[in-house]
């Protein structure tokens, strides 16, 4: 499993790319693989504000429906609208083409509770 080392990871299998106060998030390749073929991604409205730990979207596969959480609070700047037509991009490339939401973070403090790539890798292995 090749994990980008420039991100943070949550126990609910989201990834966070933090650039200043702009945070891009999506679900990990592991999560996408576990869900199997993704058929639908529900993303938030631009301009909406979320607290840390809120449900920010939903991802659905032929097998299951799963919520997407944001570990960081903030306001939605942009969403990956291409996923409406091509939800399969999350399976194909969860870390790049499959990004989901860009937030302007109101606090980066909760990021200290997130895992780095090495820790997330160990977390996934132990969960098996």
């Amino acid at each position: 499993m090749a994990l980008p080392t420039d991100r943070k990871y949550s126990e609910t299998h989201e990834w966070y790319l933090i650039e200043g106060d702009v945070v891009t998030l999506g679900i990990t390749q592991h999560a996408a693989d576990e869900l199997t073929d993704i058929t639908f991604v529900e993303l938030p409205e631009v301009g909406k504000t979320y607290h840390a730990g809120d449900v920010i979207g939903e991802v659905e596969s032929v097998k299951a429906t799963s919520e997407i959480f944001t570990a960081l609070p903030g306001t939605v700047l942009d969403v990956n609208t291409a996923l409406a037509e091509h939800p399969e991009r999350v399976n194909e490339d969860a870390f790049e083409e499959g990004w989901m939401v860009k937030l302007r973070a109101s606090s980066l403090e909760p990021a200290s509770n997130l895992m780095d790539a090495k820790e997330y890798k160990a977390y996934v292995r132990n969960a098996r």
Partner: protein
Amino acid sequence: MTATVDGAAPQRTPLYDTHLEFGARMVEFAGWSMPISFAGIIEEHQHTRSACSVFDVSHMGRLVLTGSGAGPLLNRVCTRNLSGAEPGRSFYSNICREDGGILDDVIVSRFEDSWGLVCNASNRDKIVAWLDRHRQGTDVTLRDETAATAMLAVQGPRAIDAAREVANQDFSTLKRYHFRSFEFMGLRIIVYRSGYTGEDGLEVVLPAGAVRMLLPRLLGTKDKPHAVVRPAGLGARDTLRLEAAMPLYGHELSEEVDSLTADLAWCVDLSKDFIGAEPMRQLAARGLPRRRVGLEVEGRRIARQHAAVYADGRAMGTVTSGTLSPTLDRSIAMAYVEAGVSAPGTALEVEIGSKRAAAKVVKLPFYKRPAGS
């Protein structure tokens, strides 16, 4: 052998190592470690519709009944009329409780000197106990051959060709729901013309110790895969059977529903005596209060099991299975709804997450394979 108890490691089929070799994603299902997918559920689904897939279905229970009382016992517990069943024939049937609730759906096969019964993995212990209870005082011996054998489903329009290459036998002359039992390389093999995908195909039972030796002839190896035949997992099996509107125990079928409500009247003979017949006769006379229907759901979201179904804002039913149909590229579901809103064309709504989506009752099945294929 008994089913896995809570906390125990799941059982492995004889093909466990082969699944890992082919890169399967494994899940626990009914106490067994089974492949959910290999290349991807949708890809495997489409490959089955267009070519040929092999599914490991060794987790399903395989029982053998012998003795002069075996036929009469099966005819008493099964909804299907098995009297006069000729050797070489198989029968889809339900086994029901006294009140008509479905204990399991099974395939019963008539051999020259015995009967075979294939049941769901999750219901095997229950069915063994049920048969054991009802055979008391009669000449019936019950043998569980699940662990001693493996079972493969070879499904798709190219299945008959693929099987011919492997076994050097023509199965195109084998009629649907007939089977052939023969020796191959000194091994006893049973080939049934049946399946759970809506495609043409075969289901094969063979000795557990031989399947890893024979499978490469059908499937090739990871490094040298077969040109046409590919492995498929339980995920595709589920989407395929759903398109074909075949009921699944634990979803459409349970002890809370009878065979008539489940739209399986074709496998019920109310003119014979069987366990559960009387309540079903009364139900047939009164009319069914609810029915199993197919739904086409607006949009691309999937209605999941237990989701509520509404008509004019009133809760009128419950979804049993749903998926995004890979063949039709639309959201489909099966549900139980009150009879008054069960006619094809009826406009309904289904609960999806916190929202409701428009849906329409449609005729089942959602998918029927093209004639002549």
